[in-house]
């Protein structure tokens, strides 16, 4: 069917095709002079000077392609496996990682800079993906609006009547922080199903996405709830983008509730520029790239040797023992867990 349609439309092509040739590709050897395409999600941001440094160092030009959210990106990387649109993909997190691994979309590559990466971030022994950054999804609270201005200290506290009608959470069906928080409760409570039943009894509110939770029901956007699922890096963003400027964050983080999200980069198996792709992965672990990450994407660099911007460190609390889960376990249970969650919470 595809071929038939193709021949039909060939007529049109003469008119519309703008014949730009792709950059010449090199297999192995020195990638200088080639272009490497990096596919990533819409939340990706990095300073232009960083790419200039990469090109100056390696002679390789980077072309970025951004698409939707992390889930959309992984789906599309799998769909285009046989004809990849990029050489490297960045932004696959540990909740989606196994899906990409199962679909065999990555080519293994052990970066020569891998030593700088925190050990606990390395989730794939075969180096099919390389950790680049990490962040934590955590319960945030608006300090001044808490009932009795007492902050919750544990996940269990959120089921306390003191915090009735205070918590707003995103649905794990449609939201990535929502899924991360569900995983945190599965990892961090003895009986997560009972825990959610207790949250429901305590009048937890559910939204579809982060925006309508944080800016809709949470006090930050004019709502009346004082506790929300957001990120460990949300308090520094509240300070850096405050209007008028403020010195201390209005929000705090419940460290017991944090789920670690690790973002990986991987070389797509179908690449025709493996040398350029490898150079890019190596570069993403250098300090030039790593130190630019925090203030652009509000996540931490995966490299132990990268310095952190002072305004980022000052207002950020890093959980010592965040909840973390094996990607294979997530993938094997996710749909079942989410279905069960829907029954308990929305049913």
């Amino acid at each position, binding site marked *: 069917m*595809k071929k038939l*349609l193709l021949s039909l439309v060939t007529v049109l092509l003469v008119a519309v095709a703008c014949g730009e040739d792709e950059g010449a590709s090199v297999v192995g050897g020195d990638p200088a002079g080639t272009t490497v395409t990096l596919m990533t999600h819409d*939340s990706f941001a990095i300073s232009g000077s960083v790419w200039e440094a990469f090109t100056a160092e390696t002679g390789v030009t980077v072309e970025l392609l951004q698409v939707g959210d992390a889930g959309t990106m992984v*789906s*599309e990387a799998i769909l285009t496996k046989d004809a990849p649109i990029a050489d490297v993909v960045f932004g696959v997190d540990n909740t989606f990682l196994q899906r990409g691994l199962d679909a065999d979309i990555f080519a293994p590559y052990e970066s020569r800079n891998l030593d700088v990466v925190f050990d606990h971030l390395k989730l794939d022994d075969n180096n099919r993906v390389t950790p680049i950054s990490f962040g934590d999804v955590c319960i945030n609270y608006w300090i001044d609006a808490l009932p009795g201005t007492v902050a919750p200290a544990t996940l269990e506290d959120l089921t306390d009547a003191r915090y009735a009608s205070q918590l707003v959470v995103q649905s794990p069906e449609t939201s990535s922080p929502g899924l991360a928080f569900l995983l945190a409760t599965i990892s961090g409570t003895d009986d997560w199903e009972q825990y959610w039943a207790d949250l429901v009894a305590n009048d937890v509110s559910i939204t*579809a996405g982060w925006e*309508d939770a944080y800016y809709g029901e949470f006090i930050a956007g004019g709502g009346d709830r004082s506790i929300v699922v957001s990120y460990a890096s949300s308090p520094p*963003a509240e300070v850096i983008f405050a*209007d008028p400027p403020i010195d201390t964050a209005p929000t705090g983080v419940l460290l017991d509730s944090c789920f670690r999200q690790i973002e990986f980069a991987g070389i797509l198996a179908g690449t025709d520029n493996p040398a350029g792709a490898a150079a890019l992965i190596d570069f993403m672990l250098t300090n030039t790239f790593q130190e630019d990450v925090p203030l652009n994407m509000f996540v931490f660099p995966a490299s132990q040797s990268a310095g952190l911007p002072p305004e980022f460190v000052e207002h950020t609390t890093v959980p010592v023992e965040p909840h973390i889960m094996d990607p294979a376990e997530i993938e094997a249970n996710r749909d079942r867990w989410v279905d069960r969650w829907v029954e308990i919470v929305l049913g």
Partner: protein
Amino acid sequence: MRTRERIGVGDALMLLPALFIGLFFLFPVGTVLWRGLGGEGLDAVFDLAKSPRQRDVLWFTFWQAAVSTALTVAVALPAAATVGGLSDRARRFVRSLVTVPFVLPTVVVAGAFDELFFATGLDTGDFRLRHTVWAILIAHVFFNYAVVVRVVGTACAGLDGRQAEAARVLGATRWQAWRAVTLPRLRPAIASASAIVFLFSFTSFGAVLILGGPKRATLETEIYRYAVSRTDLTRAAALAVVQLVAVLALVAVSTWLERRRPATTRMARPTRTLGSRPGRWLNVGMATALLGAPLAVLIERSFSTGTGYGLSHYQALGTRVRQLPAPATTALWNSLHYAALATVLAVLIGVVASVVVVHGRSGSRRLFDLGLTLPLGTSAVTIGFGILIALDEPPVDFRTRWWIIPVAHALVGVPFVVRTMVPLLRSIDPSIREAAAVLGASPSRVRREIDLMIGARGALVGGGFAFAVSLGEFGATSFLPRRPEDLTAPVALFRLLSTPGDLLRGQAMALAVVLMVFVSVSVFVIESSRGTAEGSL
């Protein structure tokens, strides 16, 4: 002879819509469904019927779209009639103003509605609107009001008011005259507008999830859930097939309604007979409140700074914040650029297609009518994924070209041009064509001069829609790979809203307000360009 040559060119032109829809819609969607259903074929579709949840979803999708359509028509019809009776310039002004809600991303509108619900105590309690089906319906009226006012208002303006006046002279009340004389003549336009509103509500995503709350599910949200959250392409494709079949059935019914009882038009004085003056203004007042309140919330927020009111959020649009790959002004410029391209494409293809739909052989006529309307009722996921996996190899390796984004926007714009133009062309009094023929005009000249002259109004109103659709498009755009420098305004807006901080949120609101201004000014300019064409009639 020149006329003969023209016919040849005309036939070749017919290929244009066929190729466009074939290459950028049927081929991609066919490919993704084929791949998705895989070995299971249609069994996957029939399996859906066995699941009570999916039956509920299908029923709710239809139900909410039907009620949204009925409500929108009921609320907007009096305004459409009022607009039809206005002077030319005033009509254009109102038509461009009502287009504003159309460009606003749902996440922004939902935020404004939520704030109104909170402010009025409608967020909880017995009269709660937040996270109810009512919130979805109100939002659908908000977004689609413009469709009815513009499509029906345009048809109203073309009606001959003398028959209704004659009825009044013969003793009919104003209401009787309107019901017996004017309404039947508007039926094709109302059917046309209803079809668009229904399809928009049928595939609505953000309004359902954000305002309706996480419990609500429609075919569109389910397709997203299976394709993206679960990577279950088989189930997603099965749902997409159900969506396509439903849309085909709907479009078939609506085109039948549109064709039934063709009413005719002479270009003459507009009708001014609907309703008493106070009643009409009451309706317009209510509509202004419905459309205006959420917009007022956005405007207030865009000027609200930490220290009172000011322009600082607007000034910030020119400087890149770290979350964006380029300043918001670049995104606005890109969006204007894409919208202009999408509009030219949509008008070009829509005009040719409309002429075929009205004058073509019955086979090609029906195919065009159905095929060109389909994209409006097709999930953004299906179109985005389809383009990604179908247009992936030479000679059609188009999926990462920048122009694929305006092309995807034009796919949704074309049905607007067709659905606005076709009722106008159908309503041309045959005696006008006959008169021209008697006076010696060749058939192609009749078509060119009379049809295009009268249809031009529809083409431009449809073009205004295409522009607005493109300016606000976030669905297919978010599924297509883009270079950072090709950032569009809705994508930038969404990015600004996804990191905490008052400065980012303020800038997002300012961006939304600039989009509102852009769309109303652009639509006004687009529709003014017909001034000379109509003046000669």
